[in-house]
Structures are given as structure tokens and as C-alpha cells.
């Protein structure tokens, strides 16, 4: 074959180069290389909810008190061994004994207090607190060196779930700037960080849990999905995290898994013609979303609500709108007859790269809407500008607007979604409905079946009665895992990659 000839000739020509430099491969014993989409801005434990930080830090360097079992969403012990609720605002946690941080500092109640204090720092933003703990203030008090009491400023029936995001960092860590050298109780410690190039983690002796197989992990980053995938092909890396569906071409090494993200277009329901439910329904019915799946990945599933299954409050009985352009047209005619200005141009605020295929998706939708007579105008923005349109007060409130959005519930409880996205007072909400508000409030202040029912009813009302969104997909991620490593990515891979879970193939 000519390919072979070419290969031989070029190889010959490059032989001088080859003598001095060989492609870096990750084949040395017990070492793995993981290629990420981006370099973490820091390794600050209090900001570990930033996914690029979390992927390196969480459960490798630092560990939380509790974590979610990715298979069923249940809270399981890590650095806390057991817990119980004292009253509506107060919980007690027993701490794991005999654990030390990698610098030798013992892990005890004082260390827990220090880690929570780190969240409250004022010299920088700790997204962990802002994003997942909401406006709740947590106070930690020492009961004994191995037991703490955590009091929340408002009733928190799911506190153990919320604590899964708080990383226990060593009290010896300076509280100044974002740390680039975190110290935790995890099975690995930071080796080196060559800025812009790579981060290495080394296995620690004497880890409190089972000793992991992998002795050394190297994180590198490439922003191009095709290059990440090629690196695993060439043996330059063992895991290519998050590759595009189009690059996931080899079923033997490419894994598709639900990544916890749900996509939609938020509808600003206050402006005509979008304040008419028939128009909102027509927007949904005009789209053949099953046919458009290949743009984002064949494995995605239709979404009828903004949380994935396995989330407390997910309503499994909801059914997506069927593709029915004739029905959509009929609804629009009916609305038009009632004086609704259905011909008004609707602006669609999009962001390229919010997910793979994001811009294509909008173009396809625009073309389908045009077929039923809806005039939708795409306006793409960079992230900074697009985010302005995500938050109240919304810019250009009088323009009928759809907003491209992707949401990750993160903690498996619908309360982390419903209030912000659908409540009349939610910062990202384009909906004003008293009944939804009531259901959210009921759910948030109860537990068990009552909580679940209220959230389910809220989702049903949002989808069936109000049609508050253009509902799209529960998304999937694709990750390529090379032959040297035995590991399957789960829903958790978006925010953490526990090296200890990886086994080396024989």
C-alpha cells in the first residue's frame, strides 16, 4: 500500500528527530495519563465544584464527609462514618478515626471546622458555597474530637446530601488566594504542576482506605476533542475525558453515559406571543427532536423535566410532546384568531459550545419552526454575555425571548433545580405561577414521600399545563478509555475522577 511506503519514507526522514525525542507515552508501570478538556485555574478545595478543579482534586487529594453513590444516588460515608438529625436545623456527624492529612495533621473536629471556615472566606469566591449550599449558613461545633454538630441557618432536611460537596482540606493550608497545592486526606498527593502542561499525583502510603492500584496519575489537557481521542488511540493517554459524539467511533473503548446534564430552551413567559400557552406548546410540537438526536449524540433521551431520573422529585409519568407540525400550525392559527401576535419575531439567545453541537441544534430548530410559520431569530453570544440573559433582571424584558440552557442538578434533589429555574422569585426563572411556587415551598420544607410528591406535581404542572420550556434532552457524555485501564465513567465523571477506582488491566 502507498500508505506503508509513505510511512516508511517519512519515518526515515524523521529518524534524526526520533533519536532525540520520542512521543511521551504513559506506559510505565502503575502510571496513568488522563487528558482533560481544560487546565484547572487552581486546585483550591473550597472551589472544587468548579468541574476542572474537582476532576483533579475530589477524592484524589481531598475527600468530603459524605458522597453520593452514582449508581443509585444514595448518600454513603466517606470521612463521616455515621450521622443523625437532632432537630430540623441540626445534624451530628461521627468522624472517621485514625485519618491524617498528607502533611501529618490529624483529621478531627477542628479540621472539619477549618474546612467549613475556608468556605466562608471573603478574599475570593468559593463556588461550592454559592452554588450548592445556596444562601444557607452552616455552623460547625465540636462535640468531641471525633464528632461534630452542624447547624444550618434554615431547615435542611437533606444536609448529608449537601455536605457531599464540601472538601475536607488540611487546617495547615494558608487561606490566601486560590491554592495551587492542596493538602487532603485522599489516597494521592500533588506531585508537580507544570503550569500549562501537566499535573501529576503520587500515591500515598498509609491511606486510610484500600490502597489504590495506580501509583501515579498525570493530568494533561487539550481543548480539541479529536486530539483528546487521538491521544488514547496513540497510547499517549489512557483516559480522554468528554469527547464529542462524532469522535466516539470505537465502541470497544468509547463509553457513553448519562452525564447529569439536561438541556432546554427557557421561555420568557411574560411577553407576547410567548405568554400564550398554545404558542409555547406549538414551539415544542414543531420540533422533531428524535430526528435531531444525532447532533448531540444518539444516546441522549428526550427530557420532559429539567432533572434526570434518579433525582428525588423526578416524575417518571411525564411524556414528551410528539412531533406534530400540523398540530402546531393549528394551535398557532387558533391563537392568532384570538389576537395573539404569533408572527412576532422571537429572539433565541444561544451560546456556541454550551454543549457539543449547540449552534447546529439551534439552526435545525430555527428551520423547523420556520416550517410552521414561527419566526425565530438566533442571537449567539460569548459566555460572559450569554450569562447576562440567564439572570434576572433579564435584559430586554419586552422582547419575546428563548434562552439556550443546560442544567446539572448536581445533588440528586429537585430542590436544587426548581426554585432557581421556575419559582416566581427564582434568579433564572422565566415563569410566574403561584401554584408552582406553592408546590416548591411545600416540597422544600418536607421530607420523604411528601417532598417527592410536591416536586413531581411541580414538574407535571410546568410541563403539561404551563409548557414553560422548550424541553430537549437528558444529555450523555462520551469518554474514551484505553486498554491499559479498567474503568467505566459514570454520571460522576463530570465533576470527579477518582483514580482509586481505576484498575490496571493485566
Amino acid at each position: 500500500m502507498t500508505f506503508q511506503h509513505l510511512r516508511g519514507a517519512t519515518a526515515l526522514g524523521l529518524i534524526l528527530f526520533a533519536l532525540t525525542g520520542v512521543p511521551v507515552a504513559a506506559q510505565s508501570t502503575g502510571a496513568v495519563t488522563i487528558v482533560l478538556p481544560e487546565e484547572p485555574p487552581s486546585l483550591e478545595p473550597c472551589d472544587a465544584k468548579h468541574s476542572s478543579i474537582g476532576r483533579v482534586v475530589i477524592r484524589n487529594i481531598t475527600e468530603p464527609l459524605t458522597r453520593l453513590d452514582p449508581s443509585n444516588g444514595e448518600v454513603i460515608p466517606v470521612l463521616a462514618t455515621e450521622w443523625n438529625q437532632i432537630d430540623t436545623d441540626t445534624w451530628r456527624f461521627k468522624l472517621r478515626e485514625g485519618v491524617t492529612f498528607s502533611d501529618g495533621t490529624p483529621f478531627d473536629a477542628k479540621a472539619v471546622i477549618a474546612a467549613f471556615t475556608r468556605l466562608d472566606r471573603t478574599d475570593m469566591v468559593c463556588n461550592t458555597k454559592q452554588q450548592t449550599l445556596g444562601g444557607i449558613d452552616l455552623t460547625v461545633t465540636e462535640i468531641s474530637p471525633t464528632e461534630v454538630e452542624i447547624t444550618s441557618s434554615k431547615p435542611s432536611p437533606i444536609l448529608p446530601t449537601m455536605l457531599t460537596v464540601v472538601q475536607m482540606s488540611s487546617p495547615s493550608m494558608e487561606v490566601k488566594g486560590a491554592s495551587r497545592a492542596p493538602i487532603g486526606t485522599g489516597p494521592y498527593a500533588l506531585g508537580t504542576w507544570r503550569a500549562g502542561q501537566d499535573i501529576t499525583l503520587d500515591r500515598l502510603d498509609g491511606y486510610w482506605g484500600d490502597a489504590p492500584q495506580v501509583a501515579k496519575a498525570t493530568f494533561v489537557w487539550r481543548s480539541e476533542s479529536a486530539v483528546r481521542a487521538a491521544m488514547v488511540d496513540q497510547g499517549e493517554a489512557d483516559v480522554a475525558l468528554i469527547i464529542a459524539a462524532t469522535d466516539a467511533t470505537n465502541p470497544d473503548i468509547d463509553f457513553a453515559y448519562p452525564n447529569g446534564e439536561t438541556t432546554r430552551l427557557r421561555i420568557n413567559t411574560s411577553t407576547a406571543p410567548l405568554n400564550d400557552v398554545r404558542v409555547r406548546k406549538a414551539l415544542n410540537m414543531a420540533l422533531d427532536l428524535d430526528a435531531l438526536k444525532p447532533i448531540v449524540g444518539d444516546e441522549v433521551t428526550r427530557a420532559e423535566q429539567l432533572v434526570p431520573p434518579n433525582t428525588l422529585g423526578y416524575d417518571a409519568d411525564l411524556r414528551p410532546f410528539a412531533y406534530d407540525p400540523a398540530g402546531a400550525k393549528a394551535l398557532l392559527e387558533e391563537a392568532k384568531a384570538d389576537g395573539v401576535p404569533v408572527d412576532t419575531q422571537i429572539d433565541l439567545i444561544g451560546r456556541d459550545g454550551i454543549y457539543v453541537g449547540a449552534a447546529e441544534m439551534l439552526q435545525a430548530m430555527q428551520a423547523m419552526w420556520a416550517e410552521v410559520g414561527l419566526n425565530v431569530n438566533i442571537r449567539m453570544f460569548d459566555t460572559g454575555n450569554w450569562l447576562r440573559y440567564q439572570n434576572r433582571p433579564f435584559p430586554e424584558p419586552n422582547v419575546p425571548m428563548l434562552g439556550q440552557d443546560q442544567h446539572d442538578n448536581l445533588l440528586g434533589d429537585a430542590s436544587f433545580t426548581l426554585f432557581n429555574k421556575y419559582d416566581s422569585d427564582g434568579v433564572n426563572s422565566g415563569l410566574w405561577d403561584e401554584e408552582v411556587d406553592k408546590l416548591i415551598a411545600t416540597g422544600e420544607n418536607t421530607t420523604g414521600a411528601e417532598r417527592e410528591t410536591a416536586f413531581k406535581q411541580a414538574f407535571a404542572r410546568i410541563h403539561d399545563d404551563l409548557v414553560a420550556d422548550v424541553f430537549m434532552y437528558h444529555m450523555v457524555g462520551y469518554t474514551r478509555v484505553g486498554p491499559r485501564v479498567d474503568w467505566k465513567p459514570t454520571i460522576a465523571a463530570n465533576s470527579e475522577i477518582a483514580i482509586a477506582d481505576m484498575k490496571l488491566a493485566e
Partner: protein
Amino acid sequence: MSQIDHPMTMAKPARASTSRILGSLIQDRPALAACAFLILLAFSATLGAALMAPQATGVNMAMRNAAPQLGEGFAYLLGGDNLGRSVLARLVTGARTTLGIATAAVLCSLTIGATLGLFVGLRQGLMSDIIMRLTDVIMSFPALLTALIVLYLLGPSPVNLVIVLAITRIPVYLRTVRAEVLELRRRPFVNAARAMGASEGWITRHHLLPLVAPTLLTIASVDFAAVIIAESGLSFLGLGIQPPNFTWGAMVAAGRPYIAQAWWVTFFPGLAIMLTTLSLTLLSNWLRLVTDPNQRWRFTRSEG
């Protein structure tokens, strides 16, 4: 040059210069081919765009990333793109926006850059110093930041897109013209003209511009491609051309994730950009010959 060395007829002195220029074009095959390609482009941008617009916008997921094929007429001759639209139809339809934006941007930066470059090259003084230092500022100012600022101050529109694209390209023309003028104005023939009482304007028009033009045209031709690619890089900010309108640059960018699976989605628009650049360069090389003062006698009516 040998092909224009044979004797020329003097039958129609009045029209000789035009006909000779045309004659030289016909003899310069590559330049002729380039000219033909550009005329074809002009037709696509006008007539073709009107004819093929429907095939260029409708989504057809069954033909998503379809390989180039004959069947269903010529629609999928160059394959289907990521939404199953005919690449051929989109190339033809997209020619209008593409050529419009690129031509406007290149002409703006060329005109402004060349004018300022002439001024700076001829007049040395405070004003020239200021212009040169402002050029330094523009050269160090990232284009993306310029784009965001224009977006915030002026809002998104094709005109503002052209402004951004033009601003960032002014320095190269300015500095090229200045460098050449600084050298040329010391040449004996310029001094001679000045000694004979020619005005600065006359010298500029008759001696400097013709000598500077070839380099400018060369840069402008290559810039055409750069401007198209840059445009697609700005559309994610909302500053570029927004769908359902598109340029060739946007077509190339949209095919980026599919290079390994469907090369034709990026290849053909890339080829179109390349061929246009190539044609412009060939034409400018030919024009270089026509405008070269050393060769000019061949095309002008001989006096007496």
C-alpha cells in the same frame, strides 16, 4: 513577458490601450482562468444565490453528513453538511455574504492603510509620528477585544463586523506603503520629477502608487482568506453573520467537529476560499505587469 513581446498593431490608437490590456489577459492563461473563476463567483453570488437558496437552508437529517454523490440531481454533488443541507447549494448561496463582507473589509483596510501610509511616508512630522504610534497600539491590541468592544458600543451588525475586520488589518498596509515610499522617494526619477516642478500629488499618483500597488494587491489577495476565516471566528460572539445567513467561513467552522468523519463539509468551502484567494493573486500578479511603469509603454498609446 515573452508573450507580449511581438509587434502590436496600431490600427485603433484610441482603443489600443484597452485592447492591448485585454490581449495580454487572454495570453496569460492562468490570469484568464482566474478571471473566469471570479466571474463565475459573481454569477453565483447573484443569480445562483437566488436559484439555490431553498436547498441551502432546509434541514434534512436523512442526508446529514452525506458523502458527495450523484442522485437527486446535483444537489449532493459535494455532499451534505451537518444538517443535511447541500454543500453545493450553500457554497453558491454563501458566496454573496462571503464576498460582500470580505471585499468590504479588505477594501476598507487597504484604502485607509494605504492613504495613511502614503501620508506618513511623505510627510515626516508630529502627525506622522502620532499615526505610527497609533499603529503600534492597534498592532498590540487583540482583535478579540476589539470585537467585544465594538459589539458592546455599537451592537452586532454586518457593518460593525466589517469595521472590526478592517481595523485589525490596517497596520499591515500602512506599514508596507510607508516602507516602500520611504525608499522610493529618494529614487532619482522622483527627485527628477520634483526638480521639474511636479507636485507631490502628481508624483504620488504617477510614480509612487503604481510602484506600491503590486505589493498591496498581493497582501490584499492573501488577506481575503484571512478575513473570511476571522469572520467565522467572530460569529460565536454574535458579531458575525448570524444564521440562517452564513459565509464560507461559517461553513468551514461548522464542519470542524466532523473533519475525521466527513471531510467534505469543511474541505469544499475551504477550497472555495482558497481558489478565490488564488484567483485574486493571479490577477494581481497580472495587474502588476500591467501597472509596472517599466512595462507600461506596452499598453499605452505611443506618442508620435
